[in-house]
């Protein structure tokens, strides 16, 4: 235990028992999209179809990755579920309730950490609690536990400017988890991080999810990252935004990045996704 940043998420021995417990008691939310379309108006007045008639059911507690190029509507999908935008047609339902505005069971991690620089790490994590006008004291202990789990114990009084990019994104994840959301939405959360930090974060997110057992929708444009993390992989393509492939990723967990590339299944899944992008002309062979 030389490095605090490599905290509990990584200590495999402790995890196994917790994983068993969490899978017996799924805390995830069920997500259903019915015929959801989203059409934007461009400045010239043309219709831009960001999502076209998407129907999708996400099982509670599953880790769903959504991979596709820019403009394929994956971020639109996330904004719909976060209640930030309304669909043009169709319904978005989380645990039986239609999403009309921000849903209390949803936590979001954005591409940039979006920490408030004038607040300490702890105050940043407690921001959702303040906004929902809940008692701060009830959540402080949980916030400190979350920090410990992401290897940032003792950093609660620091300011974001004193942390590295990876640490800041960990704090953003803690903030999304503070109210134990049934659905965690992650919008290219590691896109701004360097390769090594990113690899560590991917590993840590798997740990976090195995422990918490919530439903995760993880959006990325990195095929390897998506295959590594997903139970279920949605491959999307743009104009109009559609789901081209709905792939079940069947590989045992915890997955290890050290040997995942030697796994023939991993290579097969990655190839399947690539073939779609090549067929669509997104990747040129």
């Amino acid at each position, binding site marked *: 235990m030389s490095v*605090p940043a490599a905290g509990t998420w990584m200590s495999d021995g402790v995890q196994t028992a917790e994983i068993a417990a969490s899978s017996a008691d799924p805390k995830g939310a069920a997500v259903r999209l019915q015929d959801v379309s989203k059409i934007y108006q461009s400045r010239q007045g043309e219709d831009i179809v960001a999502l076209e008639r998407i129907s999708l059911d996400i099982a509670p507690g599953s880790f769903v990755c959504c991979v596709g190029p820019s403009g394929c509507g994956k971020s639109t999908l996330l904004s719909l579920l976060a209640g930030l935008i309304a669909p043009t047609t169709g319904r978005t339902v989380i645990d039986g309730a239609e999403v009309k505005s921000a849903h209390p069971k949803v936590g979001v991690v954005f591409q940039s950490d979006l920490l408030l620089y*004038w607040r300490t790490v702890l105050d940043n994590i407690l*921001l959702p609690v303040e906004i929902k006008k809940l008692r701060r004291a009830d959540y402080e202990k949980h916030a400190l536990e979350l920090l410990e789990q992401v290897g940032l114990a003792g950093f609660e009084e620091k300011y974001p400017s004193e942390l590295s990019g990876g640490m800041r994104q960990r704090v953003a994840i803690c903030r999304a988890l503070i109210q134990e959301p049934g659905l965690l939405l992650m919008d290219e959360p590691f896109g701004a991080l360097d390769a*090594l930090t990113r*690899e560590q974060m991917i590993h840590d997110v798997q740990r976090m999810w195995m422990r918490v057992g919530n439903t995760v929708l993880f959006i990325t444009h990195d095929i390897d990252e998506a295959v590594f993390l997903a139970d279920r992989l949605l491959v999307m393509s743009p104009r109009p935004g559609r789901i081209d492939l709905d792939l079940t990723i069947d590989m045992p967990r915890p997955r290890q990045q050290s040997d995942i590339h030697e796994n023939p299944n991993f290579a097969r899944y990655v190839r399947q996704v690539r073939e779609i992008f090549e067929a669509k002309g997104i990747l040129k062979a």
Partner: protein
Amino acid sequence: MSQEATVAVSPGTEKKRQVKKPRGEPLLERFSALILAAFILLVWQVSVPLSGISEFVLPTPWAIASRIVTDFPLLISNAYVTLFEVLAGFGSAAVIGVPTALAIFYWRPVERAVYPLLIALQTIPKVALAPILVLYLGYGWAPKITLAFLIAFFPIVVATVVGLQSLDKGLVNLVRSMGASEWQTFTKIRLPAALPNIFGGFKVAISLSVIGAVIGEYVAAEQGLGYLQLLANSQFDTTLNFATVVMISGLGVMLYFILTFVEKKVTFHRESAK
């Protein structure tokens, strides 16, 4: 991960190092401004008698300083008058300017109607209004406070609007995803993020307010530092004139530092803004 690890092992060292850094600088560099100022004053002090210029025409810094000491009651009682005008003018500019900026930011029609008008009015040199203000408002406090207000208003409005507009849109989405109301978005995100800009506007405005008040006193007054200067002029009292200039700049510097102090208390230290 490795670069995080080095930071993580010793949390806090980064910050301490930053704080300590200036102390490591050579003395000459740290006090370079003070040393230069002292040098200029020294040259001034020495060259007046050497050049044969009469102290009546150009008093030495020492003469000015001793005059400030001997005539301190006179100077300070007039300084209080000017200070009051500045504070009243600046205060009302802040109290009216910040809400005006909020209205411009939140309501499109206000932005469309008021903002261009404000910018057009800004092209009028405010000091040119001083004689007119005297005409309407008389010889008392009112024209000075009005001038200090007019000159301070615009920078406060513009700085506040810019501060509100420059907010990262992602932050708005973040708090909306938490279910924040528009009021909460304002108090938790917009206002704290705009505070450094608002204080930037305040600092420009307070220095301008001093100019406004003094100009107002030049035009017509019975008290205040501007009035005292005119009095000294009429009596060919150059030393008192210079002493008053020192008092006016002292007033500006003092107000500026008070604002900086308040800013540090209210907002988070700026260097970590990005």
